[in-house]
């Protein structure tokens, strides 16, 4: 009975190629269309396409192809990113929104490690984003190079986050949710009350300068000009890709298994030898680091930060992204971030009614798709012998 080494057929590549191409096209369309009717039609087509794709197994085929051909996936993503850049080359706002989506998505990848893998509730995502932003705003004028600033933003988030380690480690479930929720609120009140950090008026920042390249310059390649906002989009894209890959490795490694075990059954996990605290600290730290780095980038990009950018409501937005994307699925945060960040912006035309509509939409999604847009798939640590 030699069933063990049966070699599984690798999934076909083409669904992946089509999916990436369509996503890039949809993204460009969504961002550049401003006319309400066309936008409505486009949204309808995209939504219908997604539902049909899910119904006929295209999503699963895409995921399988992505898992089987990581290299192809990476190449396709790079190509798609270039296509998006070309498509939006003169659209400052589109590029700004893409960057914002990428920043939110990356923070949410960090939250996925915390909430989706290790099961640590974190209702202070925006606060950790803010810590990174404030680090950049305070240290930038002191002459710290910008690249170091991003890293310091991450470290600052980790250091401040470590103050919360004790409550996070000792409590579970809703009690842990309260610890981060309370932190999120007190962070905001503290910034408002405090004058050293600019108070409620906030702080201004200089734009990013990386290796002598000023991010306010337009990019000119072979006579073609791409808006300067593309600088931030590219940097954010690289960071997102790095976070995505790192998280993918975490998921497809023992660490991923241990984090899942910690989330699913602390007692069993500890009985079999896991140090629960150690893995919770690891997850919390990595997630906060992501948020801090992206916060520094966010501050650099908007050129201005104020306490009202990092409220409990914003943390809630991030949690919505994680859950809507399909908790624990790192790919899910991309479309979810796109929806959650872009939709209110695209709903500008209904003005004061947009939050009402947005909240109703989130509730509908929660009731209709409790597993989120892309449900987390089973981890298969099955590697063919080389």
């Amino acid at each position: 009975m030699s069933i063990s080494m049966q070699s599984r057929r690798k999934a076909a590549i083409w669904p992946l190629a089509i999916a990436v191409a369509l996503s890039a096209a949809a993204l460009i369309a969504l961002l550049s269309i401003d006319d309400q009717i066309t936008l409505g039609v486009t949204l309808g087509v995209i939504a219908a396409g997604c539902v049909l794709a899910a119904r006929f197994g295209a999503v699963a085929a895409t995921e399988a192809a992505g898992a089987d051909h990581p290299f192809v996936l990476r190449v396709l993503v790079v190509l798609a990113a270039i296509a998006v850049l070309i498509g939006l080359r003169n659209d400052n706002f589109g590029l700004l929104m893409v960057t914002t989506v990428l920043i939110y998505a990356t923070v949410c990848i960090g939250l996925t490690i915390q909430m989706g893998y290790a099961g640590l509730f974190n209702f202070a995502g925006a606060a950790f984003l803010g810590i990174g932003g404030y680090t950049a705003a305070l240290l930038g004028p002191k002459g710290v190079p910008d690249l170091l600033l991003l890293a310091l933003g991450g470290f600052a988030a980790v250091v401040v986050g470590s103050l919360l380690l004790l409550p996070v480690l000792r409590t579970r479930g809703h009690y842990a949710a309260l610890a981060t929720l309370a932190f999120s609120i007190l962070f905001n009140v503290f910034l408002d009350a405090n004058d050293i950090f600019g108070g409620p008026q906030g702080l201004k920042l200089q734009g990013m300068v990386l290796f002598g390249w000023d991010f306010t310059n337009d990019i000119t390649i072979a006579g073609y000009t791409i808006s300067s906002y593309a600088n931030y989009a590219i940097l954010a894209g690289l960071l997102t890709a790095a976070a995505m890959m790192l998280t993918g490795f975490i998921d497809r490694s023992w660490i991923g298994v241990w984090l899942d075990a910690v989330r699913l059954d602390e007692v069993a996990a500890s009985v079999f030898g896991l140090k629960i605290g150690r893995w919770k600290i690891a997850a919390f730290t990595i997630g906060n680091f992501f948020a801090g780095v992206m916060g520094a980038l966010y501050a650099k990009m908007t050129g201005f930060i104020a306490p009202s950018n990092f409220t409990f409501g914003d943390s809630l937005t991030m949690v919505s992204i994680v859950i809507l994307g399909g908790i624990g699925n790192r790919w899910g945060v991309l479309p979810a971030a796109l929806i959650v960040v872009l939709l209110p912006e695209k709903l500008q035309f209904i003005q004061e009614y947009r939050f009402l509509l947005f909240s109703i939409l989130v509730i509908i999604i929660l009731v209709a798709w409790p597993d989120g847009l892309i449900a987390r798939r089973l981890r298969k640590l099955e590697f063919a012998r080389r």
Partner: protein
Amino acid sequence: MDLMRWSKRLAILAAVSAFAMVALESEQAFAKEKVKIAFVGPMTGSISPHGIGGRNSAELAVKIMNSDPKTKYEYQLEVFDDECKPNVGVQVITKIASDRSIVAAIPHYCSATAIATVDIFHRFKLPMVIWAAVLPEITYAQKYPEIHRVSGILIGQNRVGAQFMKEHGYTTFVSVADSTDYGKSMNKYFTQFTLENNNKILGTFSVPPDQQDLSAELTKIKELNPQVIYFGGLTPLGARLRTQMEKLGITAQFEGNSGIMGDNYINAVGPKLAEGTVTFFDSPPIAKMPGGKFFTEQYQAAGYREPPEAYGPFAYVATRLVMETIEKAGPDRAKITAALGDVKDVPSIIAPITFDDHGQNITPLTTKYVVQDGKWVVWEDSEYATGKRKLVNCPHC
């Protein structure tokens, strides 16, 4: 509650918006060249009444302008919600500034948002006229040719207020300000001018704008026993403060600023408690403005559901000014910027507008108000000025 009416309203809303979209599409066609301008303010959140009142007023200005057959252009107002948040403001302004079809903007109620976005206006060379944000830094922290403001800055209100209180013999104050940039800035200038007048500030309290219970602060204030409680903040908190003062049996003169100016304050505390509240605001009452009657009539005729609020006329004026400038200079950002720089004694419904070299309107007339019988009355016209009624604790009334 009336579910039927709600669902009807929703249905009507849906139908109207659908129609509007179709109409916008099909209307294209003839005659005048279309020119787009953008209005930005808070359409959601607790400060949205001001944003919505401003939007209505700006819409009104556009409507009136378009109904005039002599104009060269057909104006179209694009409305954006900045949520009173700097990051959202940056997003929205980037969007507007990148849209080359928009030639000018009338942005922002909230100062922090305006401070965050002035750089973007400058960078994209998009001319703008601020309709309501009041922090001095917006125009004076830098010198950008694109930035203009018709609303006053909050320094004047506090200078006039401090002078007024001194003249009436008040010597001891307590300041309660909300913890936003607006409140902190108010408190800063209040403190500066009050101390310059050699008066005493017995205590300073900063409270979050969403705080409900102020009894702890007020108990402390009761101990301090000031003659005047100064409030720097917006109506919801101001109304709470005034109401709870009464409940704790505190008798002190209540002094406010532009943030509580408007009927909402009187509605929220009731005419009895509002009576005698004094306030300093950078505008004469609508009725006393050169075009006040015209504005009020038109606003009512347009049938808006929400009141224009205190800064509605400013939004109207800013929008009108932008359109008049476009008529003169043409729909081109650089030309509009240049033309706005020359604005001097341009008549408007509030008062003639003159921009200084920072684009700041220097003509706003700080006016003193007092609540009398459930209405804001200009101090000089009130029974308080004649001595028929008296302010609380007033030594020289």
